[in-house]
């Protein structure tokens, strides 16, 4: 670090502070939506009728269209704002990778995993939002057809763990950054985060399996 400047010549821009808020707020909104989306989809575990009934109510209230468009906007904003922290330059990426390998530090590896899953999610969720919004309302049969044809089952098998990891690591790191996770409660909250990760994974994979096995007739 080199500096000859002792005091800034003019007031510092507020942009970085705002962007930090936007990143956290959009991330929190997307995490809550992902959990809600997964819970609502998992109603298919009780039968196709349960999911279709719930979806019909939401569609009647225009929640699927309005909510879908809003989530698409929030997703784009989050991806754009959060990308400024990703080391895109080759030299930076190599430094980050070497640093993680050298340090053997779980939280540093978790950040690497969060960056890697961000790329997977950026591609898949863009496709998922488009295919979802152009084929509303959500219905068990339509989702089952999608999962059972065109190799989408395997794509979901990659994306669902990526989503769970990105979501839990992101929430954990936001908690650390803003001081909600402290030295005193770190171990406890980390353990609860792992439970959340396991729970989300189990629910999402069970739901995926149900769509895979749902009769198409």
């Amino acid at each position, binding site marked *: 670090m080199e500096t000859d400047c*002792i005091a*800034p010549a003019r007031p510092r821009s507020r942009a970085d502070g*705002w962007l930090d*808020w936007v990143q956290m707020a959009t991330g929190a909104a997307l995490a809550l939506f992902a959990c809600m989306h997964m819970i609502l989809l998992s109603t298919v575990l009780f039968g196709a009728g349960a999911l279709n009934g719930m979806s019909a109510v939401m569609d009647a209230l225009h929640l699927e269209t309005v909510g879908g468009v809003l989530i698409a906007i929030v997703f784009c904003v989050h991806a754009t704002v959060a990308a400024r922290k990703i080391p895109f330059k080759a030299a930076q990426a190599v430094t980050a990778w070497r640093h993680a390998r*050298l*340090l053997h*530090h779980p939280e540093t590896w978790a950040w690497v995993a969060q960056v890697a899953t961000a790329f997977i999610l950026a591609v898949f969720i863009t496709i998922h939002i488009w295919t979802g919004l152009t084929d509303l309302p959500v219905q068990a049969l339509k989702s089952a057809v999608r999962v059972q044809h065109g190799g989408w089952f395997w794509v979901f098998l990659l994306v669902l763990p990526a989503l769970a990891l990105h979501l839990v690591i992101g929430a954990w790191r936001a908690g*650390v950054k*803003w001081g909600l996770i402290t030295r005193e409660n770190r171990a406890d909250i980390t353990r609860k985060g792992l439970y959340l990760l396991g729970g989300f994974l189990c629910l999402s994979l069970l739901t995926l399996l149900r769509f895979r096995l749902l009769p198409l007739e």
Partner: protein
Amino acid sequence: MQRSLTFNIFRHNPQDPASVPHMDTYRLDETDSMTLFIALHRLREEQDPSLKFDFCCRAGVCGSCAMVINGRPGLACHTKTRDLPDTITLLPLPVFKLVGDLAVDTGTWFRAMYQRTESWIHTRAEFDPAAQEARMENEVANAIYELDRCIECGCCVAACGTANLRPDFLAPAGFIRVARFAADPRDERTDADFYEIIGSDEGIFGCMGLLACEDVCPKHLPLQNQLGYLRRKMGLTVLKKLLPFGG
């Protein structure tokens, strides 16, 4: 049973244009209560007098002997060889300018950081050398002391992902320095003043919350809690600007 330790040590002299960075291997028999500091001295005295590394206090006070020990930044004088495997890899701290082999120049970095954080008490009070020192509650004094225990070893900086990626990042050592003055009632700087120093991506908003700093600090400074505290403080300073009564 006495172990034979293998040391893989980074060697390079940046002052010598012919020097090529490489690793040298040494072997040494372990002795009781051997620290890395003792081992390095024995290697230099018995095997290779050209080996460069910094040391001073050998008691974890001066911070000079910080290096990367099997991947993790730490103090050589604080690290017992019995806590390490048979093969030990030693590298200089990243981020800082390399002096040679395991020795780095932390002084230049810390001086720049002190200038950037304006690391002194800002007050308009006239100094009266004849007056008694202003009294302070013991609780406040202890809180300041807790934040003032940094020995400037640079371990937190070397372990910080952001500091490794961007050289202009203030890093945990800089943040705890700011937190120390923010806690001092004699310092008249406001949150808005501190925002001018750390309210950016080179400052507190660049912290990614990886907590390697917290985990490697040899003095166990409360880095995690202070990083969270400063981010909240600076985040609220931004929000206050939006409010008509926020200033």
